[in-house]
């Protein structure tokens, strides 16, 4: 059976309360690699393959988004700063950075991570794998 014909299946990967304390878990599930992230009350899952070169994007660091501070009145910039309220997923192969919640690259909105549907069902984190 080809992959395209494989019906989606739901996989429970553990309890929400148990996993959320880890903030990030990367799993190989029957050969499919998925990164699952917990940020506040939000939960996201992304395929662990970088759209750039196929690197293991979810196994890199997560960091705060870098911003360029700009004074709106003068247009002057005091330089770069960090937005500690956001998290970026950094591909360990070449440093591509993606917003943890949206999967969108920090600069190029056309470059995105591929999502994996994820939900909490009866207290368990459940992925829908294609």
């Amino acid at each position: 059976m080809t992959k395209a014909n494989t019906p989606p299946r739901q996989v429970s990967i553990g309890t929400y309360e148990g996993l959320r304390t880890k903030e990030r878990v990367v799993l190989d599930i029957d050969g499919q690699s998925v990164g699952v992230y917990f940020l506040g009350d939000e939960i996201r899952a992304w395929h662990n393959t970088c759209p750039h070169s196929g690197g293991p994007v979810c196994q890199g660091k997560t960091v705060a988004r870098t911003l360029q501070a700009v004074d709106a009145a003068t247009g002057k910039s005091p330089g770069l700063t960090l937005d500690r309220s956001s998290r970026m997923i950094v591909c360990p192969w070449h440093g591509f950075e993606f917003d943890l919640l949206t999967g969108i690259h920090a600069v190029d909105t056309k470059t995105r991570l591929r999502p994996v549907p994820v939900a909490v069902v009866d207290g368990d984190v459940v992925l829908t794998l294609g």
Partner: protein
Amino acid sequence: MRPTQLDKARIRELEEIGTRSDTRDVLARATMQAKRDYDDYFVVDIDAHVSEDHFWGEVIELIDNEYLRDLGQSQLRSFAGNNALLNIVPGLSHQSVGGRITHQGRREPDVPQGEHPFVVAAQRSMDAMGLDYQIVFPSAMLLLGMHPQDEVEVALARAFNRWTVERILPMDERLKAFVYLPFNTPEACEALVAQYADAKDVIGFTVCSTRNNAIHADCYARLYAMIEESGKPLAFHSGYHWGDPSFAQLNRFATMHALSFTHYNQIHVSNWLFNAMPERFPKLKMLWVESGLAWIPFLMQRLDHEVLMRPSEAPGMKRLPSEYMAEMWYTSQPMERTNMELLEATMKVMKAETQLLYSSDWPHWDWDAPSVITTLPFLSDQAKRNILGLNAARLFNLDIKPKKPRADAVLATRPGRS
């Protein structure tokens, strides 16, 4: 649909990749790409790097000048540590993007007793990327051309060449190297060419491009003749230097890196052509390393345009600069590939099918896996094979009998935690 709890054995947690990850884990995806796309290709990586700072004590002890060896060992034990005698500026070394990219400068874990950590790391990278041969260059020494003390460049060059050729290369027949030429001192370069011209695992000679020497100067004529006579290529390996006044205008490593690595080789190619060096040393095989590809069509067009209007400044040239450039060799990394139409045109004009050599630059931050070539939609299978290894075999007289293990065997030994 009711969730299905899979057998626990079929769910495997994968580790974060960091500075102490095994090379085979970091590159496991590249092994899978090899299995999928190019397991039967002959692949040569023309430009990989030693993190020589990790073994700097071994190099320093090989310095043949007693004063400089003593000075180096003193610095090694004190404030300079692994940067002893070098002119790199640690505070301006932003390659890891603030620790986001961890493979540059990483230390290989689990090195078997009695084996050399660099050789083990190199072997793991070759197996993981599916390489038959890997040619290694230094890293921190790439800036030595800007060192204010010429005698230090000479001493470190001689020591590093000895370390590479006598200690490292004999440990694995898949490892090869260029001999570093301390270009600020032509006589010392000539002595090194004489010493290593016939060395089995030395496949050529290299000049680090980051310097302000005019490479067409007559003081290098004897050197070029000697290299030409050896039949081995001369490679100019580009680099950066934030201390260069033009680059001091730039406030980001990204912009400085983007421009400087192309800048130095553009200057050297321009001087090489306008001073008719291809006519004066017609058998000298010139290789330009680590500038990517996008600068090549730019410089071809620019120099052709100029020489047509000002032929009196280039009377030694018998053809257009672009024609000479299409006969030189180039390494691929860091290969610009955000616009396939431009890349295809670039490869066509530079005759990539015969002149381009794949290079990884591993373990540096902007490395390229062989898949950057195998996934190009416009190249024929033969062109991919040429770029990945057969062009190198021709240039360096390498035996194309496969040397690497199959990807399946690599993954069976180490399934990867990535």
